[in-house]
């Protein structure tokens, strides 16, 4: 038996697995193995933190968008990311953990967020690359997660997927416009793709053979497809979109196989581990910004509590 469940009641565990196998969603009050709960808390809070931290590289360009139209669109997209973070925090809380604890774990470095957001957004083309590639990769992952076995997570994913395709299109549109522009603009777009391509592929995580937690997550249908399957799907969808507007991805080993799927070069896993372990270009500033915003919002939360308490006591004495 798997070590992760050796202390569980075998009968309850068997019932649980039967439900999962029958595609019956697990709901907050249902019995679940401790390891299932822990895996979900880790994965869902990491997902929530990613949505929230992901606002920073995009917010970086809000004051410098090329037009009012693109400013309004970017603002709406960033607001969606905040919303996605909130859906996911609420869904995570159904597992019996408070939002304050989740935020605290992020600040203490005990919880992670997607390492993609530790790269800087250097030019306006990066906003295009983030929408098209980063959100594009997130969509592939999230479409798969709509079928996850945990009910609240699945419902949050359905809602998020409905909103996410606008994000990818706004990113692609930015790149289309640049590719129809001057040589300088085309170079800027290509440069953004050169920097964001490999980190986007890393978003799917390590190869299946090096992904220790995957087997239980697949058995319990938290994850429905493996890292490598999802990565391949993303690549196969994305390469034709790049070619259509004259962009190339920085992979000399990439070619189209006879089966219609792309073979791609080896990912630099050392860079991946390095960024995950806190040594990416922006790890420190992303976390510092979040901590600062949280601390500077403290008086607002306190004032809101005081106001609510005073209104409550006025009601009682009236």
């Amino acid at each position, binding site marked *: 038996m798997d070590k992760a469940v050796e202390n569980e009641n075998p009968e309850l565990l068997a019932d649980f697995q039967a439900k999962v196998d029958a595609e019956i969603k697990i709901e907050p*009050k249902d019995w679940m193995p401790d390891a299932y709960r822990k895996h979900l808390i880790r994965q869902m809070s990491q997902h929530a933190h990613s949505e929230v931290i992901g606002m920073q590289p995009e917010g970086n360009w809000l004051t410098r968008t090329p037009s009012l139209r693109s400013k309004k669109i970017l603002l709406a997209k960033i607001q969606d990311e905040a*919303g996605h973070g*909130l859906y996911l925090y*609420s869904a995570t809380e159904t597992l019996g953990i*408070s*939002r304050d604890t989740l935020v605290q774990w992020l600040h203490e470095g005990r919880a992670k967020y997607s390492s993609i957001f530790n790269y800087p957004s250097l030019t306006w083309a990066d906003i295009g690359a983030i929408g098209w590639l980063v959100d594009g990769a997130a969509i592939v992952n999230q479409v798969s997660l709509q079928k996850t076995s945990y009910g609240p997570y699945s419902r949050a994913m359905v809602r998020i997927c409905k909103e996410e395709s606008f994000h990818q299109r706004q990113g692609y549109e930015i790149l289309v416009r640049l590719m129809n522009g001057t040589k300088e603009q085309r170079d800027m777009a290509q440069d953004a793709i050169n920097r964001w391509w490999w980190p986007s592929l890393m978003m799917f995580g390590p190869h299946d053979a090096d992904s220790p937690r995957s087997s239980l997550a697949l058995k319990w249908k938290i994850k429905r497809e493996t890292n490598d399957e999802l990565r391949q799907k993303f690549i196969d969808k994305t390469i034709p979109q790049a070619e259509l507007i004259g962009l190339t991805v920085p992979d000399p080993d990439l070619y189209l196989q006879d089966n219609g799927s792309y073979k791609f070069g080896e990912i630099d896993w050392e860079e991946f581990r390095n960024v995950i372990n806190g040594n990416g270009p922006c790890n420190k500033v992303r976390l510092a910004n979040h901590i600062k915003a949280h601390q500077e919002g403290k008086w607002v939360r306190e004032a809101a*509590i*005081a106001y*609510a308490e005073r*209104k409550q006591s006025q009601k009682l004495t009236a």
Partner: protein
Amino acid sequence: MSDNQGPLWEVFIQTKPGLPHKHAGSLHAYDADMALKNARDLYTRRAEGTAIWVVLSENIHAIQEEGNSDYFEPATDKIYRHPTFYELPEGIKHM
């Protein structure tokens, strides 16, 4: 004074006039006014609703079939409540 994000509220959205309100999700807010405004910003950014209810999560009482099958049993043993239970003569119309 505590520093937290306020109590949890459940949000119910009516997608069109005349339809029932449906559970959309939950959120944190310090009072009902704030919960309604947060619900508008969080769950109806794309005109998903014509009306919103918010209820403190602690005020919702629930029971589910799993582990309580006796509780829901009376519904399953009265099959004569379903119209398909009845045998009707061939050729009957509008019933």
